[in-house]
């Protein structure tokens, strides 16, 4: 009997099939067959918190199931902060090859923004099949408040330190084991202070993590060790680095409440029972600060006002650079777009071509008289082709990879500068070709006309492989300052250049005046009286005009002139907002090592602009105290 003659079957049949299909799909793949799936466990920033635009540690734990995995871990880093624009991602691909039932931890440091679009993590097979994916919301986790990283296995709350009425309550993030700590200092720079509880096993930190913490402190960070019932067990690395004598004994401190609290006896504080014990010691370590606290402040709260603890623990004094000061980024990107690199055909190629023409014509002329010259002709043409081809390749002419960068080196703490490098790279190669650039502290971004298009990059160890050009490259690092400014008297500034390169086109600048220093030689010194020439208009444009009017031989490259102008604009914006505001600052071109490694045959131009504030207190002739 046909189904049409039994209407109920016509309904039940498809319905049953649909139910069976739904039942089959509702079973998680693998669970029915006992297959364990691959998993991604991402973690960003400090318990998810990060500063908008700051280089932030990103950690991904890749776990494999019953089968080995060979493919890529793909991170989609959102760039846009506007909902009105389509989401644009920088796609970072890392090759993953992992055995079954294993897990590996991958760490990256990326500049994250509080985007309305999520940060995505995907495991993709070689064929591009998405095996698993995770999305992390960024919008609610970008904070402008100070972040304090607490290394504490018990993750005790330190929120009691924040005053109830204080709007700048820090964000506390807890690292309960070594895996939670970044392994490069760049990832820590946005942290106001790192506190280490006595229970935290410092010896479990990897050498990279130890180095990152130490570099963080030397470049302006604040590391706080809290004491307790045990003497600290620092590894040799820490002991060598700390320099300061370490506590070697434990005693007890009686609080006003009559409670005995176990505490470190801080070195050099041999006190009697009747004296008030020293509760903390603070040292300068590089540009940063190292603080030892005798006991857990939680127990000592009653011995000091809360505000004193806040001050001591570095919650008031913040050394990190607010990342909204990078709002002028676009000014530098705009300068790079269209920056000129070279002019005309290289003279070596011109000479080779002319030599080739002369030799060939000479041999052709001689060919009338005998066959020897004729026989030599193909050899000369062949050798000429090889030599000219080799020279053009050596000069990178066929590669046509052009690169221009501006490095803005600016003061972040006493003796420490931060360099933020903006690079623009493009290639005219007809075929899509891999271009490899250095990966350390570098992230590519889409070029201006491609901001709404995703940019795909591959990370292979120490290189980023780029295919789509033009592309922007952003790099950030901190280093010891080579140039120091001292005020030797009222209105007199001493510029001391300890570096190996001269400072060119140096200016001391205020909002409406400038002093032209010219060149400060390497290992040189210059004293200047701050009696400047008045600027007829906006100071940045005035300086650019001054440089433009220099004789051709002394005139800097246009990219240097524009970079100096943009750096002056940046400094005026940033320093006027500081408290106390900076009146005068130094701007100069300082040649230096390359920040971003690019293909060796590329045509390139690099400009490093140094911006340092003149210390304001001494400038005013006052006493800092």
């Amino acid at each position, binding site marked *: 009997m046909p189904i049409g003659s039994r209407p109920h079957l016509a309904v039940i049949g498809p319905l049953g099939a649909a139910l069976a299909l739904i039942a089959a799909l509702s079973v998680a793949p693998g669970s029915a067959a006992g297959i364990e799936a691959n998993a991604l466990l991402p973690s960003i920033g400090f318990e998810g918190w990060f500063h908008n635009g700051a280089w932030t540690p990103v950690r991904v734990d890749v776990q494999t199931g019953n089968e080995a995995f060979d493919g890529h871990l793909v991170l989609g880093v959102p760039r846009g902060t506007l909902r009105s624009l389509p989401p644009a991602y920088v796609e970072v691909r890392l090759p993953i090859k992992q055995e079954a039932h294993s897990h590996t931890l991958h760490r990256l440091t990326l500049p994250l923004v509080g985007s309305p679009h999520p940060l995505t993590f995907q495991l993709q097979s070689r064929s591009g099949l998405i095996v698993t994916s995770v999305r992390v919301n960024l919008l609610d986790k970008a904070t402008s408040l100070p972040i304090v990283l607490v290394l504490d296995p018990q993750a005790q709350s330190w929120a009691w330190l924040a005053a109830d009425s204080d709007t700048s309550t820090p964000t506390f993030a807890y690292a309960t084991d070594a895996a939670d700590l970044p392994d490069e200092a760049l990832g820590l720079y946005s942290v106001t202070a790192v506190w280490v509880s006595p229970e935290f096993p410092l010896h479990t930190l990897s050498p990279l993590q130890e180095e990152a913490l130490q570099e963080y402190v030397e470049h302006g960070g604040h590391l706080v060790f809290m004491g307790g019932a045990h003497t600290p067990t620092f590894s040799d690395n820490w002991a060598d680095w700390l320099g300061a004598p370490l506590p070697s004994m434990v005693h007890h401190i009686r609080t006003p409440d009559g409670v005995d609290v176990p505490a470190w006896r801080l070195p050099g504080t041999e006190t009697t029972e009747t004296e008030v014990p020293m509760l903390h010691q603070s040292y300068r370590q590089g540009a940063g600060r190292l603080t030892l606290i005798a006991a857990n402040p939680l127990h000592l709260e009653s011995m000091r006002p809360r505000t004193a603890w806040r001050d001591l623990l570095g919650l008031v004094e913040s050394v990190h650079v607010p990342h909204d000061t990078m709002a002028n980024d676009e000014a530098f990107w705009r300068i790079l777009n269209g920056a000129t690199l070279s002019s005309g055909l290289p003279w070596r190629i011109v000479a080779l*071509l002319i030599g080739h023409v002369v030799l060939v014509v000479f041999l052709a002329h001689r060919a009338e008289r005998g066959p020897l010259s004729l026989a030599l002709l193909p050899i000369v043409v062949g050798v000429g082709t090889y030599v000219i081809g080799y020279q053009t390749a050596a000069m990178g002419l066929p590669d046509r990879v052009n690169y221009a960068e501006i490095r803005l080196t600016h003061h972040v703490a006493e003796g420490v500068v931060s360099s933020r490098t903006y690079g623009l790279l493009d290639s005219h190669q007809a075929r899509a070709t891999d271009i490899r650039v250095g990966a350390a502290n570098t992230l590519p971004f889409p070029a201006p006309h491609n901001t709404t298009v995703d940019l795909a990059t591959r990370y292979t160890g120490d290189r980023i492989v780029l295919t789509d050009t033009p592309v922007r490259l952003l790099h950030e690092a901190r280093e010891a300052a080579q140039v120091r400014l001292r005020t030797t008297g009222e209105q007199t500034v001493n510029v001391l250049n300890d570096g190996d390169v001269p400072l060119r086109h140096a200016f001391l600048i205020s909002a409406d005046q400038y002093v032209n220093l010219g060149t400060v030689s390497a290992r040189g010194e210059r004293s200047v009286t701050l009696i400047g020439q008045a600027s007829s208009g906006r100071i940045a444009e005035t300086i650019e005009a001054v440089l433009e009017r220099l004789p051709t031989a002394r005139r800097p490259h246009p990219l240097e002139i524009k970079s100096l102008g943009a750096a002056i604009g940046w400094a005026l914006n940033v320093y006027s907002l500081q408290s106390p505001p900076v009146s005068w600052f130094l701007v100069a071109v300082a040649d230096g090592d390359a920040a971003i490694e690019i293909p060796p045959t590329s045509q390139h131009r690099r400009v490093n602009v140094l911006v340092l504030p003149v210390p304001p207190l001494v400038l005013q002739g006052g006493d800092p105290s």
Partner: protein
Amino acid sequence: MTVHELFSVAGSECRSFFRSGLLWKLSGALLLLLTSVTFASWPRVAAVGDQTIPLTWNWFCYVSMAALSYIALTLASDAVEAGGRVPMYEWVYYEAARPVSVVIARGCAVLLFTLILWSMTVPIAVVAYAASPLSIDQLVGAALITLTLVVIATAAGSIVGASVTERTFRWIAVLTIIGASSALLLIVGGWIGPSGAAGIVTLNPLGAMHHFLDADSFAIKERRFPWASWTALYGTLVLILGASAYIRLRGWLPADDRRITLAGTKGTRTDRAKDSANTHSGGEPL
């Protein structure tokens, strides 16, 4: 047509090219021209983020195509003086070679000489190519288009060489061909006046060259070049031109009752050709 005849005519042609000073004069002129073009069209500045593709390689290809075609045309038509070179019709008139052998051998000799000149420009091409590198497919395509035009110019020059005896008139004929064909190519290719249909645009040498010099290699993959149509069209054209030259040459075959030698008596073809090669430096028939 025998192999001996072909080699005899081609060898005579090549000897006259190399020994008459044509080699160094033409190579000098060609190399200087292409070097100048490369220098002049090399981008003055390289700017980051500038997506403009330098036109150095395009200029090199267009100019070398035009120059080589011009050289092939003038050589095949006997418009240029080459000491001791036997005019086409004399090979036939004195029965030193058959018309078909003369057309083929002289064509091959002109092509060989042009290719030798072309090969000398390779180092310059390497520099020009460095300004705006393209894919190998595009390189080979551009080379084949140039070769096609050189072959056509050789065949067209053969008609002039077979038909016109006065060097002045040969020059006039050559210049007329250049002017007419240039106008035709520019109009048909859509470079002057309204654009033609896409097929016609691509199938003319300028359009074809443009097709291969298009910097967008991805577009090239999508627009495959119609090689079959190209071969059929220009193969037919070359055959027609060659056949025309052959027909014109046949007109120089002496009738049996008019066969004479320099000495006024009948002789072998070889004797007459040798006499001609030894006594003539081109010009009018005897």
